[in-house]
């Protein structure tokens, strides 16, 4: 046992605590760094024993302190849990957001405007026409209301479709998917996968690099917002990532990447996996069904027209199409009614009745036909607006050649009464509901779906938040805790310094004797 060993012990104390202070200050500096995981030094005694002579012979004490380990608090299990839940809650949040946008198109319905208002106004115009069936003003008003109804269908449908186009691009325009939300998300995902593979490469050479795995964790968190995936960790600290059951990142190598292409109206985009040469991976030519969470999953659901159980913009727009087509058909059928004994009649310029032309329908599609009417293409027959005499208000007995028995009966309103009757009549194509009821049902259904999506989003966010809080509590930095450690290590440093000065004065004492 010598004074020298005391000095060297004090030196290890100074050094170890100085390192500890470095770690603490790094923790404090990174208090707001996303994905940062706090570190702790773990001290251990240096086992180079110093001999201490005692009454019972020689006994041993340690030779100072050393840093045994730099402990990282990263928890792969919580990371995994968080990412799985995050994928769900990101999907739910995005669905709720979009559903909210879609719902807002129907807010004005509550004020008596919008499509339900337009339907009501159309029937009101029919009622007005029924009191003055030969009046040109009433006929024009009737056609104008029909026009405004068609326009309302168009504008709601256009708004819905613009959302779909924004998400998936236009199925009829190859390449448009690239700049759509889906396209951008796919390229974001591929970029993340590439960076994760790169970081895996660096980590495999330096597996203890805490900063590297921190960056990788941040990227993987980010990836989980976009798509759900599975992770396995290798011995050397690298991570493998698989999407839809297919390994896409194998340690430092990116095996394949995500690709998207335009599909059909009902499935407007198709996701697939391609290898780095661009060849489709076997069995992964359409992985849409496996992508159910993350923002990408939500985008797919919003534009999917085939699944009837979940909210989708396509579904809303398909229902509007059905409504537009069935409503137009019902009104057109009345307008051109002819059962061989009575028939719908238009007026001539001479205030007499004349049979309605087969093509003198009220509603058409924008290409001019009377079939395949949708909410997007419904329009009125402008010929009837220019020439409202062609509106069939009368329904009178006809001769075998189709001409009216009494061509002067322009005051007859039975055909317009038949139009009014469609107001309450169930239409088979609308589940035996009247047009107004069908639409009322649609709006209320959207409302309850949005309410469900909102509460889903709240629940999954709360779940993700609580897991994140747990994860945060384990690996996040608490400034107060670090401050206490800071003082602890500072005091230890001071104490070691004092030991040094004591050892020094012991030397002085010895030297002064000499």
């Amino acid at each position, binding site marked *: 046992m010598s004074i020298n060993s005391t000095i060297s012990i004090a030196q290890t104390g100074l050094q170890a605590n100085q390192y500890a202070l470095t770690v603490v200050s790094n923790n404090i500096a990174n*208090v*707001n760094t996303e994905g940062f995981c*706090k570190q702790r030094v773990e001290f251990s005694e240096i086992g180079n024993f110093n001999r201490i002579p005692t009454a019972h012979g020689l006994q041993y004490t340690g030779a100072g302190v050393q840093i045994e380990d730099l402990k990282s608090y990263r928890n792969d299990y919580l990371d995994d849990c968080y990412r799985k839940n995050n994928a769900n809650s990101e999907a739910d949040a995005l669905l709720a957001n979009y559903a909210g946008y879609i*719902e807002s198109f*129907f*807010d004005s*319905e*509550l004020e*008596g405007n919008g499509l*339900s*208002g337009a*339907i*009501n*106004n159309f*029937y*009101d115009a029919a*009622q007005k026409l*029924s*009191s*003055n*069936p*030969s009046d040109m003003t009433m006929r024009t008003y009737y056609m104008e209301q029909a026009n405004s109804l068609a326009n309302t269908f168009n504008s709601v449908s256009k708004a819905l479709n613009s959302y779909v186009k924004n998400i998936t691009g236009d199925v009829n325009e190859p390449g448009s998917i690239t700049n759509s939300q889906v396209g951008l998300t796919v390229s974001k995902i591929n970029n993340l996968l590439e960076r994760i593979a790169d970081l895996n490469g660096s980590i495999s050479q330096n597996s203890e690099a805490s900063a590297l795995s921190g960056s990788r964790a941040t990227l993987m968190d980010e990836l989980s917002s976009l798509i759900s995936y599975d992770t396995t960790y290798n011995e050397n600290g690298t991570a493998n990532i698989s999407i839809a059951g297919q390994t896409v990142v194998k340690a430092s190598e990116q095996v394949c990447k995500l690709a998207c292409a335009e599909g059909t109206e009902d499935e407007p985009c198709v996701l697939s996996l391609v290898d780095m040469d661009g060849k489709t991976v076997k069995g992964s030519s359409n992985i849409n069904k496996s992508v159910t969470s993350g923002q990408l999953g939500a985008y797919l659901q919003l534009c999917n027209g085939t699944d009837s159980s979940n909210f989708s913009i396509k579904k809303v727009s398909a229902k509007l199409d059905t409504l537009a087509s069935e409503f137009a058909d019902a009104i057109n059928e009345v307008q051109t009614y002819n059962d061989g004994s009575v028939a719908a009649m238009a007026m001539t310029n001479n*205030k*007499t009745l004349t049979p309605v032309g087969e093509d003198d329908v009220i509603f058409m599609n924008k290409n001019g036909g009377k079939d395949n009417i949708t909410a997007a293409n419904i329009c009125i027959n402008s010929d009837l607006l220019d020439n409202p005499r062609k509106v069939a208000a009368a329904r*009178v007995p006809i001769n075998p050649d189709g001409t009216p028995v*009494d061509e*002067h*009966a*322009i*005051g*007859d*309103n039975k055909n317009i*009464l038949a139009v009014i009757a469609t*107001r*309450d009549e169930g239409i088979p194509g609308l589940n035996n509901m009247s047009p*107004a009821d069908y*639409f*009322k049902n649609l*709006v*209320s*259904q*959207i*409302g*309850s779906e*949005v*309410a469900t999506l*909102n509460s889903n989003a709240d629940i999954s966010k709360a779940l993700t938040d609580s897991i*994140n*809080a*747990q994860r*945060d*509590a384990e*690996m*996040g*930095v*608490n*400034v107060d805790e670090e*401050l*206490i450690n800071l*003082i602890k290590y500072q005091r230890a440093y001071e104490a070691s310094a004092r030991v040094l000065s004591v050892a020094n004065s012991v030397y002085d004492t010895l030297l002064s004797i000499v």
Partner: protein
Amino acid sequence: MVSTSSTNGNTKAIMASLMEAQAALYKTQQQAMSQKNILTPSDNPVGTSVILGANQELSNINSFKNNIDYLDTSASMLDSLYSSVWDKVSRINDLALSAANGTSASKELMQNYYDEVQSLKEDIVRLANTQFNGEYVFSGTNTGLAPFTLKDDGSIVYNGTASLNPDGSAIAGAEEYYAKKLEISQNTFVSINNPGDAVFGFVDNSTDPPSGTGLFFAIDEIQKAMDPSNFNQEEISKKLEGLQAGLENITSYRTKNGIIQSRIASAKELLENQELQTTERKSDVQDLDIVEAYSRMTQQYYAYQASMQIASQSMNLSLLNYL
């Protein structure tokens, strides 16, 4: 559970609860400002359905009320029209009576009587050709044609939708063709126009003997009997019966019109009741209970304030203050 928490996580949690309190307050503020409980369908999907249903009902009620107003004006117009016709026919009746009973009927006086009947007849034809809203009211559905044409030979031809055969008998099911029905409440229709031939009759002087039916035929026959060149007191007395029948017919149509008027009035009352109820039902769902909303807002305001206070205190809380 959570033994320690990270400073960053703490801040996030404080921020989240602040945002939550703020969002709740904001929602109530929006409701209070719009005075509406339901701002968007998801606020209350069932209520949304009630509101849309009520909107449709109110729009229908509005249409029905328009129809009723139309019917109402048209019925009052008809009432005064029938009354004028009645006056004029009574005058003809009086003239015929004097002619039939006059002991010292001079030829000049007879000519005066005859001329007055002629002008009264023309008046009645003019009344029968009345238009309402651009439509002839006695033409059945031939609303573009004046129902009666008075010819030089005294014939009065009916041009409207026929409800009688040439011999004066009723055509079965004719109402289907001459009536114009309007909806005055859900699936309840009122038919307004009457066929002129059934109300006024017609005269055909081109046949021998002249044929016809109804009021116009009676007037024509009386007028012929009062012709000073062909004066026949006995004939006049005989034809007075027909005139009476015509007069009664007008009265009966006037009564029918009165029944429609009272039916319309009660329908209108019902509709107004229904409108009130529907508006109330809608308002129950849609309109904000302002007292409840205000107290909720106050509550949320304090909750938000409390969150802010707690946030500012707990964010200030740091060991740094004590080192």
